[in-house]
């Protein structure tokens, strides 16, 4: 190895290091802890460029389950949280980690199942459907990851008067992963799974699955946004974070959300509290 080669190698490695070194400059960016469903459905892919064009603020999205997103914020590692599990969000607020909660939009869940429909639930309401699945022991995939979808699923079992913690058997598969992974697993084992509509529409690996139950009011899924409390973590970028929240609930942001469609279908229905109402 000549000196020239070593020099070249060193230059390459130094260049690599320089490109990943931390920048001291005050960059206009915020970290938003959100859910895998908002990422996987493509909503952020649609919204963030519009926000950046208007405000020149980079939004860095960490997509985790709702529970994990709130925990990230509790550690001060995010500026804003955007999740969909109202009870968990209110607990977060009560603990003093959030400033104020705003409704942003809702989408809905759908119960996905195999075309063969072993539990015979197609077209029924969600309560009846869940009861049938549990009674027949039909394979059911649960997110099992403290996510908003997981919380909603648990709430639905409860509404159906089923104590899932004791009633679950080998038919109930908790995988502790995101929505895409849950759908993959359901496709592979021809089972039922609760999914948000947005992820389902963009999901390509459907196998033998189709929508079994939809439209039930109990399947509506509310998203909320909160600024992480700068009194707990002075490092929170409160002006930039608030700018993002303000935009989401503004007429412009709400219109952008409504505009987002996959295959011509609107996925998210904005419902922020209108000012002055």
């Amino acid at each position: 190895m000549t000196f020239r080669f070593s020099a070249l190698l060193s230059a390459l490695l130094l260049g690599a290091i320089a490109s990943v070194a931390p920048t001291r400059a005050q960059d206009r960016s915020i970290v938003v802890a959100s859910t895998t469903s908002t990422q996987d459905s493509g909503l952020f892919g649609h919204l963030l460029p519009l926000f950046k064009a208007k405000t020149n603020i980079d939004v860095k999205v960490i997509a985790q389950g709702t529970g994990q997103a709130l925990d990230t914020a509790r550690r001060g590692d995010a500026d804003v949280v955007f999740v969909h599990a109202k009870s968990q969000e209110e607990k977060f607020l009560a603990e003093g980690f959030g400033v104020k909660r705003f409704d942003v939009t809702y989408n809905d869940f759908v119960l996905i199942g195999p075309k063969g429909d072993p539990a015979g639930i197609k077209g029924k309401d969600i309560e009846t459907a869940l009861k049938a699945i549990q009674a027949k022991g039909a394979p059911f995939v649960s997110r099992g990851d403290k996510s908003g979808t997981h919380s909603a699923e648990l709430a639905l079992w409860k509404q159906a008067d089923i104590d899932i913690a004791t009633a679950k058997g080998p038919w109930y598969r908790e995988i502790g992963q995101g929505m895409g992974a849950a759908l993959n697993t359901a496709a592979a084992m021809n089972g039922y799974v609760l999914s948000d509509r947005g992820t389902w529409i963009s999901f390509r690996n459907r196998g033998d699955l189709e929508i079994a139950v939809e439209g039930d009011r109990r399947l509506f899924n509310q998203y909320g946004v909160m600024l992480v409390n700068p009194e707990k973590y002075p490092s929170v970028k409160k002006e930039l974070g608030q700018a993002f929240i303000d935009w989401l609930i503004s007429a412009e942001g709400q219109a952008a959300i409504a505009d987002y469609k996959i295959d011509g279908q609107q996925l998210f229905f904005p419902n922020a509290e209108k000012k002055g109402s």
Partner: protein
Amino acid sequence: MPDQLSAWQLILSGDPALFAIVKLSLAVSLSAAALAALVAMPLGALLALTRFPGRFSLVVLLNALMGLPPVVVGLAVYLLLSRSGPLGAMGILFTPSAMVIAQTILIVPIIAALTRQTVEDLWAEYRDELTAMDVGPAGRMATLLWDARYSLLTALLAGFGRAAAEVGAVMIVGGNIEGFTRTMTTAVALETSKGNLPLAMGLGLVLVAIVLAINAAAWGTRVWSERQVG
């Protein structure tokens, strides 16, 4: 990145998002390899050349640490760099810098252990001559490290390979943020979880091809150099 296109179409069309991901993967793993070598090679040489009580246990420990699970390293670094952690004020969580730190920690053991073995073997050969020339401890380290440079390049590649292949550490400390901390491995994990299996596989193959190319280039350089310098 559009979902429907295969990975190869993305490459051929010069998709900027894909190239950004590849660039970041290489920058992070190459940086980690360089920084790890800076620490690990002198450490390995030191272990090879010195004798002190507990040396044997340290050597065994170093060999064992080669198997550090990436996700555990990632978690440890996350807890260190979190705002509520001791180094939170640095503010580098969820940035490429954090990813480099995690990967550097991950691969120091493998580079150090390989260096130690190489230098120890070479010392056995050089011992008489270097002692006869009255070469001091620092001189020995420098001479042996330079003369062992081909084997050390292999050790560097081994470290780079381990870094480029892992996903656990960079996922946790980087956050897989689109456009900022998404690497090839985290992109593969993401596309898999979304059900885009063909795209995920394609990305995986691109990663393998790149790592193979780097290894081939290094090996070719070594062969060429050996012909020059023996």
